């Protein structure tokens, strides 16, 4: 499967340098705009010239978007376009983003949080945490929304899969890395509700 599009002129040799750079910048913005998930550097590299630094282009794009209500955000090892938090009330009021909202119940969220904090963790591990069985349906719901994926198998009878969070999970909750999660000890001290210092 070639996603490069063989006829895409990456190098744009016939353009003067500044226009070439501008065109690359637009392509990066277009790719990010079209994607709901973070886009990795490697993938962005496919639409610009061989020697062009994706990081520099991203930095320029960030400057370009300075006055806009959306920004380019680094998520895990990639980037995505995302509306600035200040506009969240407006978007919510218009209910324009309803279809994109995660469909998670409160308990789904609790399980997702437990997976994030204890990963890699299996259903058995989750049962120990919650004191009850976590249904396959619930795990399936989190997996279809690409919030979790399968991790290493657990070295016990039946070799159950463990679950780990994805980059989509980070993006959905506005985190750059798992380090943005509150410290488990902090959580315990604060009775699960304390503000995180990180």
């Amino acid at each position: 499967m070639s996603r490069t599009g063989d006829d895409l002129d990456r190098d744009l040799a016939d353009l003067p340098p500044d226009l070439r750079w501008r065109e690359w910048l637009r392509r990066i913005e277009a790719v990010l705009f079209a994607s709901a998930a973070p886009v990795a550097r490697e993938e962005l590299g496919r639409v610009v010239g061989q020697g062009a630094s994706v990081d520099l282009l991203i930095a320029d794009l960030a400057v370009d978007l300075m006055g806009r209500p959306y920004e380019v955000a680094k998520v895990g090892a990639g980037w995505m376009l995302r509306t600035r938090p200040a506009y969240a009330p407006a978007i919510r009021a218009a209910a324009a983003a309803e279809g994109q909202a995660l469909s998670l119940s409160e308990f789904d969220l609790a399980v997702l949080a437990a997976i994030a904090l204890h990963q890699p963790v299996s259903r058995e591990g989750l049962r120990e945490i919650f004191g009850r069985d976590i249904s396959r349906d619930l795990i399936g719901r989190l997996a279809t929304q690409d919030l979790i994926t399968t991790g290493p198998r657990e070295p016990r009878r039946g070799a159950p899969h463990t679950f780990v969070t994805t980059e989509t999970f980070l993006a959905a909750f506005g985190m750059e890395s798992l380090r943005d999660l509150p410290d488990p000890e902090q959580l315990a001290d604060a009775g699960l509700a304390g503000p995180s210092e990180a």
Partner: protein
Amino acid sequence: MPNAATTDPGDPASIAPLPGWITSGRGETPEDVAFLSGAALAHLHLVALSPELPQELWRDRLALRAAEASAGFAGRREGQGALRDAAHLTKACDDPGPAGAILRAWTRAVARPISVGPLAKALDGVTPEAIALCLDAAGAPVGRAAAVLEAVLADTPRAETAALILADAALSLALGRKHLLPLLALGLKSRDLRLTGEALQQACHRALVRAAAQAVPMAADLARRAARLRSVAPKLRARGAAKAVEMFLSQDALAPAALPLPDRAARRLCDRLVALGAVRELTGRDTFRLYGV
């Protein structure tokens, strides 16, 4: 030379322990500290030349320790056992999880000769340009490594693993090594990573002495175990046993399923090697066992 007695003088290939004055020296001034780390690095250089030492295995096991330390710096609690499990129980299509990813980065970084391409593959999210810059750092070995560490952490304060891998890569290159030898990660402490300039360089010197105090005994131990494994190798008649021995001599741990033998034969071979005292079972479990020299 109180340590001379512990070296077998009849065996020129045996690995000499680190002279006691290097690790017990109360070097407090910057000159003392730098002198001791220089002595430790010079000794490591000789150790690394030993023909008895299984180099790849040594690097791989140091990578495991470095990964354990890196996981700690990242606020995770996985020990060596959990890291090994993450590496060996993750199928190709699955995600190794955050700690497994740290070990994977280290393992990949030590497996191939140091260069931009393989390091870019090992370090998700670090640009090839940034890696090239780190590898081109100038100056004396420890100064270079400290500069790389500081530069990467200034840019991305949470990328401890990447920073340590690149710093150790810069150090290994400066010492004329083709492959990355994980050292700084073994010796540095969490608070050292927040230091800069002269203070960070001092911390790196101290870390290298501590790291050598781990790496040299490990090398001696591995050389002895490898000699044992090589000596029993001719007794193994299973098809694929020679290749399996080679794998044990280059990797920290292996699941029987990873050996180039049918399942039952692989398990029998592992049991036999354990019985012969040539490899150890590393997990203490009855199932999902992992074996290593």
